[in-house]
């Protein structure tokens, strides 16, 4: 087992990671942001990495309402 790496991201890097992880799973990032904000974590297992990054953002981040 290798030593664990720790990553600390800016807000914009987090948003890009949500986009990347959503597209990687074949989902529209805008839908993922919208569903997360609505508390609807659909496709839970496949998209949990994307939702994890969403959870790091403040609930009032403009990405959830734009």
């Amino acid at each position, binding site marked *: *087992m*290798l*030593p*664990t*790496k*720790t*990553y*600390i*991201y*800016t*807000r914009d890097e*987090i948003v890009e*990671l949500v986009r*990347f992880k959503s597209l990687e799973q074949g989902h529209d990032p805008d839908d993922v942001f919208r569903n997360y904000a609505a*508390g609807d*974590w659909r496709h*839970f*297992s496949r998209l*949990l*990495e994307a*939702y*994890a*990054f969403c*959870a*790091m*953002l*403040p609930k009032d981040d403009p990405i959830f309402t734009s």
Partner: protein
Amino acid sequence: MTPSSPHNWSSTVASLRKASDGRLAGGREAPAHFERYVNLLFRLTVAHREAAIRLSRLAASSKVWALTGGHDPGGRPAVRLTDGRYLRLVAVLELDVSASRQLRFQALTWQYQNAIDDDSWVFRADYSRSRSPAASPPRGHLHIDGTLRQPGVLRPKQPLGRVHFPCRRPTLEAAVVLLADEFGVPTNAPHEVWRAAVAEHEAKSARLFDS
């Protein structure tokens, strides 16, 4: 694998105990202790020597963390196992301000799969704290990819893999035991060493789930 002496495992077990206590103590250091705990738990048990995990958070906040398999943020979140297969692992952790900044799982998934980047999965556990305790499917549940021998049991066109078998708290220790004892995934430490460590810490890990 490089054979390790009993002394080395004693040291690992002691470090595991310290990390376990730290993750349960809460506060800003708890996520780092949790990361250390998971690393040591897998090191003792089913992790390949090149297996890896990573911890991520937003710079402006240290309230929510993600612990995922692998080192590469652009890669698949999977931990390489000693049997050549993978455990896909994503955990969302939160310092619960309503509970003295105790560390809690907000969500968790772990999935045993044949390859790193396809859908060849065997079983999976999911947990979502935000789901109502009375919700269906339940907060914690297990999926198994397979077929039933008895026909007509499931609803038409419903595969077994979509059935939610309730499991209240799908701990990482449960994943390790399932892999090692039921699926024969080789462990790094001898059985009596890793099994005692898991037994010592699994009940404590329940505190990381719904309070």
